[in-house]
């Protein structure tokens, strides 16, 4: 929020027209670790100590470099490569409360969204239910409606296990089920 406000004040532009080095790296399938504060506060609060990166046993948490501008050094997951297994080791070592302890069920890293055009089950190509099988909250976060997977938004943690498992990869590198960040890049949450 402050970033948006200050960005707006200094550059005399609305919050969504921030310069590139202030633009959040959180996008489709690029998510913060569990228990993260709002993305508006993340870069200000995180002190880039890398402890979450070091304790992640799955090496799922990557560290951004200077190409991410002022977000350099902050942790980010690429869930289609390595998803979050919700082991919650990272939240316990964060010294700044940027990641704070949260239960597995209450984690909201993002929300899985199924692309019904590329999904094999929805487009009627095969009876694929990989995402349903891999979901750690099977029948709660993903359920099958006439053999087609459906996401239930109030239970999806955005861990990305479904995205990681999805056999479809479209030419943009997206899967048929992707995790969309809950944070909006256009500053709607600011």
């Amino acid at each position, binding site marked *: 929020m402050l970033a948006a*406000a*200050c960005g707006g004040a200094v550059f005399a532009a609305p919050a969504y027209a921030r310069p590139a080095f202030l633009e959040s790296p959180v996008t489709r399938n690029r998510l913060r670790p569990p228990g993260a504060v709002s993305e508006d506060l993340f870069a200000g609060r995180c*002190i880039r100590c890398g402890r979450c990166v070091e304790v992640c046993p799955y090496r799922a948490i990557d*560290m951004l470099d200077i190409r991410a501008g*002022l977000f350099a050094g902050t942790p980010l997951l690429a869930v289609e490569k390595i998803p979050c297994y919700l082991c919650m080791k990272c939240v316990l070592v964060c010294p700044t409360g940027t990641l704070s302890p949260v239960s597995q069920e209450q984690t909201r890293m993002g929300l899985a969204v199924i692309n019904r055009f590329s999904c094999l089950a929805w487009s009627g190509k095969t009876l694929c239910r990989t995402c349903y099988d891999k979901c750690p909250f099977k029948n709660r976060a993903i359920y099958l409606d006439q053999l087609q997977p459906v996401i239930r938004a109030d239970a999806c943690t955005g861990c990305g296990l479904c995205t990681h498992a999805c056999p479809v990869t479209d030419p943009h590198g997206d899967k048929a089920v992707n995790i969309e960040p809950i944070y909006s890049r256009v500053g709607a949450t600011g």
Partner: protein
Amino acid sequence: MHRHKEQQGRTGRGAARYGRWRLLTLLLAFLVILVNPLLNYHLGINWLQGWYQSLGVGHLWFVSPLEGLESLLVTRSIAMASFIGMLIPLLLAFLLGRVFCSWICPISFFAELLDHGHRLVYRNKRRQDLLVPARRLLWFVLVGELLLSMILGAPVFVVLSPPGLVGREIMMAVFFHRLPLEGLILLPVLGMELVCRRLFCRCLCPLGGLLALVGSRRRLVVAMEPERCVQCFRCDRNCPLGLRPSRGETLTSYCWNCGACIDACGPAALAFRWQHNGNPSRDNQPPVFSTTML
């Protein structure tokens, strides 16, 4: 002739050998951040995490005060873990001054290695400081850096702190087999050593500025006994920060208690002293406006 006299003086100097201890401490401090990613990555031992931005030793957590302060100013909120983690470094700086800079910081470690290398190559030829900026720049850098962070809404020193970058580069090399580009900042920081010893530490490091400010009324100071001083000024030439201990400048906020002047002092006129009044400034003035620093 002059050199002969110096060597005579050297044989007669006191038993203080802080230089070796300092190099050993710096080496150990560097080994901590070198070994820690290896332990985490290859052996899965998470007992030790992080580097000198935040270091976790079991349940004992340290947070760098400037990083914590930036986080506090930018988000106007503070986590209890961060607050408690800042207490030990702040207490250390309050009592002992900028000892983090001279005895722990990896940048200082590299700079000392460069000094030793220079001494090996050029024998006893003394390093000349070609450009010496005003020391007061340190305070302006500290204030400017905090203001810039608040304007941008993102902490600047946290992203690009040279001591932190050393840890980050090592961790990234071990974990992801790549070296992020921002590590190139370390080259000019260490390259400045050619122009002036510890140019970055002297007046460009905001963390050093904050620690100097906190330690301006420190208890541990390098004090001189004027009766024993023979006016050889070897302490002045050996101070890596370009201070003049012979004129009592070790009592200003800028001294980082490295002990190089004590090592250099032949007649042992300089020594560490624990002050009980906690007011090292001779003329009892606030350090920022003290005349000795001008």
